[in-house]
């Protein structure tokens, strides 16, 4: 039972490598130089260790069968040991260890080399329980969904705003912890951790936090959208373009509503494109409610608000999930999220419904207002 088990295991591994599409977070289908290199290290180790396992399990099997007690088996020879054999089965494993160590240590230094001059540095900041991405080169901030260009070295420079998290997008390679930064004396460098890779294939890659970080550690998803360099530039432009008023549908006579008292000043410029399929008046209303509610205390939408505390919601509609993996990004789910975030995601630090022991007062938004805001947010593409 044991040796066939090992063989089955080895072939299953190879089989799975082919099924990347079925397993969005598989480690067997890397799309980066980093991921490919570490898998090579794994393959080396795998073959050697599987070999050892097969040998050991076979020997056990042979021993228990061949030397089992039978009525006529003789009294065994009382052997105490054999120095030569001991030396042999110390040296052989030692050699195997060296065979594994050489490519391994080489890979350690290769994967942790200094980033090249023209690497794209993305600052990753872990929060309980969402991800902030900053692009210093483009003076751009987003959350949970990070666009990355293919063919260019990406340097993730990471730290946490609260507890230890871990950034893991398996198809991009290994993970790295995201640690809080001990405060330093004046002039001292701040600590960060790093990942370095170049993506070869465009696609949407999923990941999640991999270091237990509290209540909703399980709901702290990462989406990476790898695109060709020109598509990446287009995204940058979309992110930075300030929003315009959503265009009214033909036949809709309602004018753009006047800003409510105390609301942010009306934005100028070309603004964000509005997706089809939602009544513009609802989206208008949503933007109005968003701008005049507590939302803006925490959330930034480029050109609309600049809240520093929560995830940036610019181009929110492009994300696959709301709440960093809490629910798929649909109108109904976003409504549910806004209505009561803590019910959807334990410990979420966002006001919503009335909670007797809650950290925040209720937002006091009506269902219609919530629906409108959800329509607005999901329209941001």
């Amino acid at each position, binding site marked *: 039972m044991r040796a066939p088990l090992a063989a089955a295991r080895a072939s299953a591994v190879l089989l799975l490598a082919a099924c990347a599409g079925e397993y969005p977070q598989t480690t067997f289908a890397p799309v980066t130089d980093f991921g490919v290199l570490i898998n090579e290290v794994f393959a080396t180790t795998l073959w050697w260790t599987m070999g050892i396992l097969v040998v050991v399990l076979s020997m056990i099997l042979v021993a228990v069968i061949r030397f089992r007690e039978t009525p006529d088996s003789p009294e065994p*020879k009382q052997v105490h040991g054999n120095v030569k054999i001991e030396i042999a089965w110390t040296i052989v494993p030692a050699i195997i260890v060296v065979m594994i160590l050489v490519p391994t240590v080489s890979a350690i230094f290769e994967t942790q080399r200094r980033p090249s001059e023209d690497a794209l540095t993305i600052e990753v900041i872990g929060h309980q329980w969402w991800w902030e991405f900053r692009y210093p080169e483009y003076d751009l901030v987003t959350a949970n969904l990070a666009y990355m260009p293919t063919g260019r070295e990406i340097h993730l420079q990471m730290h946490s705003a609260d507890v230890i998290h871990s950034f893991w997008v398996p198809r991009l390679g290994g993970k790295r912890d995201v640690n809080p930064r001990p405060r330093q004396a004046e002039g001292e460098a701040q600590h960060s951790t790093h990942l370095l890779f170049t993506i070869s294939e465009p696609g949407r890659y999923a990941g999640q936090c991999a270091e237990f970080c509290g209540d909703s550690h399980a709901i702290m998803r990462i989406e990476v959208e790898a695109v060709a360099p020109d598509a990446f530039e287009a995204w940058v432009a979309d992110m930075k373009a300030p929003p315009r008023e959503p265009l009214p549908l033909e036949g809709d006579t309602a004018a753009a509503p006047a800003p409510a008292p105390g609301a942010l000043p009306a934005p100028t410029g070309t603004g964000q494109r509005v997706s089809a399929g939602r009544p513009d008046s609802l989206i208008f209303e949503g933007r109005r409610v968003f701008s005049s509610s507590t939302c803006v205390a925490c959330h930034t939408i480029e050109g609309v608000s600049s809240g520093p505390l929560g995830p940036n919601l610019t181009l929110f509609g492009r994300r696959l999930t709301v709440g960093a993996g809490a629910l798929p990004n649909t109108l109904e789910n976003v409504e549910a999220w806004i209505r009561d975030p803590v019910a959807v995601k334990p410990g979420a630090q966002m006001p919503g419904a009335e909670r007797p022991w809650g950290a925040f007062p209720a937002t006091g938004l009506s269902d219609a207002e919530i629906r409108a805001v959800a329509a607005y947010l999901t329209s941001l593409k």
Partner: protein
Amino acid sequence: MATLEAHAPHAAQPRGTRSIIWDYMTTVDHKKIGILYFLTSLFFLVVGGLEAILIRIQLMRPGNEFVSAEVYNQLFTMHGTTMVFLMGMPIAVAFFNYIVPLQIGARDVAFPRLNALSYWIFLFGGIFINASFLIGAAPNGGWFGYANLTSEQFSPGLNIDFWVLGLQALGAASIMGGVNFVTTIINLRAPGMRLMRMPLFTWMAFITSFLIITALPVFAVALFLVTFDRFWGTVFFQVSAGGDPVLWQHLFWMFGHPEVYILILPAFGIISEVIPTFSRKPLFGYAVMVYSAALIALIGWGAWAHHMFATGLGPIADAFFTVSTMIIAIPTGVKIFNWIATMWGGKIRFTTAMLFAVGAVALFTVGGVSGVMHATSPHDLQQTDTYFVVAHFHYVLIGGTVMGVFAGIFYWFPKVTGRFMNETLGKWFFWLYFVGMNLTFFPMHFAGLLGMPRRIFTYAPELNLATINFVTSLGAFLQVPAVLLLVYNLWISVRRGAPAGTNPWNAATLEWATASPPAEHNFNTTPVVHSREPLWVEPAQVEEAARGPMEHIHLPPPSYWPILTAAGVVATMALFMTNLWWAPLIGLAWTMIGAINWAFEPTH
């Protein structure tokens, strides 16, 4: 009962329940204490197992809502904490307690009352930490309690307080036990029993005890640092004051890595007794087995940061720990080969004990192989913090430690009770458990490398990990009837098991010379040994010493100060949680009164 008359082993005389309870509460006899440790560890095995079953029910389906995230986080934390500290370590100590003095020809351990103290602190500490469930505030920071999640800021409730205070008490008890066993093994060996004539189980107890003495103090300091941060506002892990949470990881794993050797070496010792006995041959390469264990323990001190490959220590540190970790594989592999060589050319009898011992060698090898994979740090960045690691350590801990312990139970039960366990039930237990265990943990290798991180209360359906998780859960459920079979077997065998003589397995080591169960004083006269296998080489002389005419024997009298002092220690922890400055002083005073009375208590 200061002195004993010579008498043959007798059938247990009926005694009132109250007198039995008082007997056990005040006992300083290593055998009774061993039984107490065993029964309590078994209880916590069931508790930890229950926590695992609840975890597996929750993870059976993606998006399941069997338990909330908050409850789940308590469950996985307590599962790990219970299995490591309330089951894994104490059950080894149960065997150390019962078997080591018998194996070295001693009447008891070096410090019998200290021995009792260790047990009672374990029991009360275990109750204390689990009492947190009653107020819904069980520890929830993981069994490894990473700072700064465990700080007052990010864990404001009582959960982590229970964890740091409970483990502090348990750690102290472990250190006392370590001191006790090292002293016992060095100083109380029978004449002629040189170190290199000691049974291998005693050797493993010896090395494990050294690991306990050196590793647990590091953990004690780490726990103090978190405790003081939480209770007194120190800034050890306060990021805004320059504190570094990564320091916790270093301290914890400096303890944590030797800890895993503390967990496995006793099982290695048991396997090294069982396999020779049921192969009818001596252990192959005794000296190599001793040296390799010592080497594993020593190098094990230099491998801790292989738990931190994802932390970002830099390539030089990563390379160093990669190398040191892989080096440990060599002496470990040597041990496996020596066990196989012991069986080779033997006459193997498949008792339940032997099945478990051989099964443990096989499954530990599987776990060891995934361990070597972890050691290759670049790919460990994919493996770490995923179910691949969960698979690895359950293979070594259940495959190795727990199954080794099961072997020990079936092996030594006849000595402890004078009766055999039921072999038919035993074999059912073995196969059910073996299949269940593999069904549970083998798929986890795949779950991990297909993208499932650890410590998550649920997972997204689109990850397509539902089937793997479902199969894993089924395997876990299969372990339940298996363990129930063990408990049932123990229960009926104590009462109605077939009588066993002094040496039913025809084994070689000294404990098999005594009566089954041994008299309270173990050996009528201290035997003199001239070999590693006294009962194979010089049986007449040794048995004469063990069961022949009695010399004048003086045994330490029972005492109630250990249990009272232990209550004081745990009470101090509990009173600390009141946050009243004077409350722990009551506990300390109580402890001191117990200790001082103990010190001045007459011992005969």
